[in-house]
């Protein structure tokens, strides 16, 4: 029974059609090095920059999650990681980039609980004046949500918002599935941010949103290191190796 459950969690939902390409064919090839991964990340970003659609970037050297548009950072959030594991982000990044992949996409999203940012009374009044459906103006502040990238890769985003769960039973089932997933080779990064940051991330990160990883050692466009943006919570210190 345990094997059945583990297998279900490992296989999980319907397989996403884009879990990254298969491992290289032919005789076992050496895993790609940092240079190869960095090159792929650069070229992939150049390709993604040609559309008007934002994409996510997991910036491992900066421990930050970013939204990029046309090759430029338009939103960023330090990943204030809550974990008893040492270097969960490194483990996540290693699994993400296994087989040389630097680009995946959000395959699934699950929102545990959220609350409306604007009061429905206010929106009802405003909606009558501007003659618009009030639901178009409402914004949802998430308490917690999961972003999944296939192969057991999960970003677990948590805030200090106290939301209303859609279904406590579904939430418990998802929690158990996620914990089992971690036990069977998945990699999860749990990080904390504020409600407004989570609001944007929750709306931008939809199933299908391309997600690029800047691997450890990725050299940014400007070779000199620059300090991180100051628009969010202070960056946590990385545990020393």
């Amino acid at each position, binding site marked *: 029974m345990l094997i059945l459950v583990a297998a279900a969690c490992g296989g999980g939902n319907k397989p996403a*059609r884009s879990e990254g390409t298969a491992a290289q064919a032919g005789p076992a090839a050496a895993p790609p090095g940092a*240079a190869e991964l960095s090159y792929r990340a*650069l*070229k992939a970003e150049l390709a993604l920059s040609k559309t008007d659609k934002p994409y996510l970037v997991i910036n491992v050297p900066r421990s930050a999650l970013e939204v990029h548009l046309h090759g430029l950072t*338009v939103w960023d959030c330090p990943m204030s990681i809550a974990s008893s594991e040492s270097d969960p982000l490194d483990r996540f990044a290693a699994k993400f980039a296994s087989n040389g*992949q630097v680009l995946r996409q959000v395959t699934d999203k699950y929102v545990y609980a959220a609350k409306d940012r604007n009061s429905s009374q206010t929106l009802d009044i*405003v909606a009558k004046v501007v003659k618009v459906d009030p639901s178009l103006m409402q914004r949802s502040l998430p308490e917690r949500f999961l972003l999944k990238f296939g192969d057991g890769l999960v970003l677990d985003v948590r805030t200090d918002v106290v939301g209303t769960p859609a279904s406590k039973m579904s939430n418990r089932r998802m929690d158990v599935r996620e914990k089992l997933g971690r036990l069977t080779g998945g990699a999860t990064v749990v990080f904390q941010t504020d409600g*407004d940051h989570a609001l*944007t991330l929750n709306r931008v990160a939809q199933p299908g949103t391309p997600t690029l990883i800047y691997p450890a050692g990725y050299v940014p466009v400007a070779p000199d290191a620059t300090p991180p943006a100051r628009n969010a919570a202070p960056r946590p210190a990385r545990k020393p190796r």
Partner: protein
Amino acid sequence: MKILWAVSLALAAVALSLVVVFAVLIAVPPHDAPDVPPLSVDAMSFNLPPDGRKAETETAAARAELARLKPKLPYIVIDTHDQKIYLRTEDKIILQGVCSTGNDGTLKDPSADRAWTFATPNGVFKVSSKVPQPWWRKPDWAFIDEGEPIPKDPKERLDPNMMGEYAMGFGDGYFIHGTIYERLLGINVTHGCVRLGSADLEKLYKAVPIGTQVYIF
């Protein structure tokens, strides 16, 4: 003895049923995963040339191409999700404020075959004009929305108050401008333009030259 066996079997059956139910609840995901189309970009097709020198050259070329996409000067970012506006560089926020973007509603002209969607466009634009003390030239939809007849005299379209103290155009009739409805900032109520409070608007107007990139998502 037989009763004991029967009770034990019954309890075992109940326990087994509970385990099966539990396993099914866990095995079946709480929601159906969506159908996600494949990525349009195949990153695995980007391979470094095996020759070390060529690899360095190609990497440097890719890096330079990405660098060309980045503005040298601070740029404006409009987050239509959180209703915030920023003047920033890649590493630093210089100014930030609460804004109001398009309400995503639609309006149909009852007397003609035309309709408008009031969304703020997403993508990359440039500040193409800067106007102090702007007057609003009301387009047709502003009259239709109020149920008023469309005036024939162009002067009847002009409103000196609605756009605040400054306006910055970024193309196609869209502006970043002020508002008399500052209480509604933070809610997407506009017809596509981006509204700011007067204090933030003045700071931004004075800080950005024409040509400043505007990123909207």
